[in-house]
């Protein structure tokens, strides 16, 4: 094996092992930042030694052994040695040897997930920590995925570690009372990663779409770690179902294709099945939360063989449920579209008019665009034209502006 090949092999091992390695170390040293540095040290050692020695058969154990040795060296160097030993001795008494080492690593991984997505961290910091600590991406890869300079991400991670350290966040699975909020914070970070990838367009660096895969992988890991949480399965279902359309949602030159115009044969049907399975697990665990409801909406589309078979009545009902759980003007706007498809443009227009009166989406181009569409269908052409022109003046996307102005002109 030449050096470049070995380096790629090492990167691959790193992607598989790093989260569990960091998680194990974090339990030992009680400091996520230090754990990550120790894991990095082990990676450096691998990069130095494996091109000569070859990749060891049990690469994960090799990395863990090296990192643990570094951890011990690190303690020896510390001045407050006695204190640290006393603390560790105490911890060891509290937690005798785990009978099942695999279960212990699972717990550590779950703790690491919770700490990387801790609410003391701002959302961009949570996302960066998630990709770095849980997905094993390098700072450079994260920067490429987010189209920002590497230094920005590096600094974000350094600050995040400092924040966690300053806040003295324990390396623990949150207590029952905190659990829902903390889990919500984790799911939010995972979905942010997914959406960053999903919003990528053709021509963007390949790292961006890869974020969808990273988020899915994390979601599936989480579903194994906390299998009784309905919303975890709901989020996995939502991501699987949305990702199933990736191959169909842009033209060869990267222009977006709207859901109803997509070629459904290009949807990934294996992925749709996994999404539907995750949704049914979510449903079996209790009432649907916001992620599961969105997944259920996506499932209505996934289950329609052709657009005309879409169950818009069901979609409108799901949006209704969603707007009660997580009220938002954007959800209302989507509900208006579903209602118009199920019950006609006049019913949709009522909802949109309430939104207009509320004034919250005043600068959002899709509001006049949707309203214009309803008005046009109702034969109120002059009003519709005004709305399309207004939408065109609000959008920042040149192509969308052209389309909206074309619709305005068609209405005479």
């Amino acid at each position, binding site marked *: 094996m030449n050096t470049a090949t070995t380096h*790629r*092999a090492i*990167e*691959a*091992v790193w*992607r*598989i092992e790093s989260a569990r390695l960091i998680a194990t170390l974090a339990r030992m040293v009680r400091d996520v930042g230090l754990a990550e540095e120790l894991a990095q040290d082990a990676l450096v050692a691998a990069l130095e030694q494996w091109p000569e020695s070859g990749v060891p*058969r049990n*690469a994960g154990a090799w990395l863990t052994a090296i990192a643990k040795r570094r951890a011990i060296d690190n303690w020896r160097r510390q001045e407050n040695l006695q204190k640290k030993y006393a603390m560790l001795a105490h911890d060891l008494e509290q937690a005798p040897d785990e009978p099942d080492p695999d279960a212990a690593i*699972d717990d550590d991984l779950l703790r690491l997930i919770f700490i990387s997505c801790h609410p003391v961290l701002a959302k961009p910091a949570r996302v960066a920590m998630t990709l770095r600590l849980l997905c094993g991406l390098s700072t450079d890869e994260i920067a490429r995925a987010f189209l920002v300079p590497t230094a920005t991400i590096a600094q974000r991670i350094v600050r995040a570690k400092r924040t966690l350290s300053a806040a003295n966040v324990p390396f623990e699975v949150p207590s029952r009372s905190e659990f829902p909020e903390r889990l919500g914070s984790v799911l939010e970070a995972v979905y942010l990663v997914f959406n960053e990838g999903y919003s990528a367009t053709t021509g963007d660096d390949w790292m961006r779409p*890869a974020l969808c*895969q*990273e988020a*899915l*992988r*994390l*979601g*599936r*890991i989480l579903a*194994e770690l906390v299998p009784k949480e309905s919303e975890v399965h709901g989020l996995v279902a939502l991501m699987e179902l949305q990702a199933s359309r990736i*191959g*169909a949602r842009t*033209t*060869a030159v990267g222009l977006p294709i709207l859901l109803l115009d997509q*070629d*459904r*044969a*290009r949807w*990934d*049907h*294996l992925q*749709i*099945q*996994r999404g*539907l399975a995750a949704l049914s697990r979510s449903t079996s665990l209790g009432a649907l939360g916001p992620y599961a409801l969105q997944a259920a909406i996506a499932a209505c589309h*996934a*289950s*329609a*063989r*052709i657009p005309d078979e879409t169950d818009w009545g069901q979609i409108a009902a799901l949006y209704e449920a969603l707007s009660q759980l997580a009220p938002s003007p954007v959800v209302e706007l989507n509900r208006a579209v579903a209602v118009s498809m199920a019950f006609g443009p006049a019913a949709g227009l009522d909802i949109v008019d309430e939104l207009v009166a509320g004034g919250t989406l005043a600068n959002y181009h899709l509001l006049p665009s949707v309203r214009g569409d309803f008005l046009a269908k109702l034969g109120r052409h002059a009003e519709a034209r005004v709305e399309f022109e207004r939408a065109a003046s609000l959008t920042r996307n040149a192509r969308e502006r052209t389309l909206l102005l074309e619709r305005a002109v068609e209405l005479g």
Partner: protein
Amino acid sequence: MKYMLLITSDAASEAGVPPSRELIAAMGGYNDELIKAGVFLGAEGLRASSSGARVAFHGDEHEIIDGPFTETKELIAGFWIIQASSKEEAVAWAERVPIGSGTIEVRRVVDPSDFDRDDEHVQREVAWRTENEPGFAS
């Protein structure tokens, strides 16, 4: 990216000998590892080639050849489909398959975006699939 890990037959699997309890446990452990890592997308094992057949094409003619087939080392005994971010990562997973001897072949699964969607034949296939694909919606 999706990769398929293909496992080849051996004399025992071709003879229809059921796998040992140890092997079943080891394979179960391996599958668990894939699932826990969030990369498992699917897997199937195949019965001995004696329960299968081949259809061989020769121009306008074709013939049906019943199993078993003799070239054991080239026969597929099962497969996994996993998600991996690189060939190296897929290879790293293949290296962990708990077998003492034999081969795991690592192949990347074709992605919808690999096709030129303006190609006439692709469009025709797409139209056919839209009309006919069973289980299109589960």
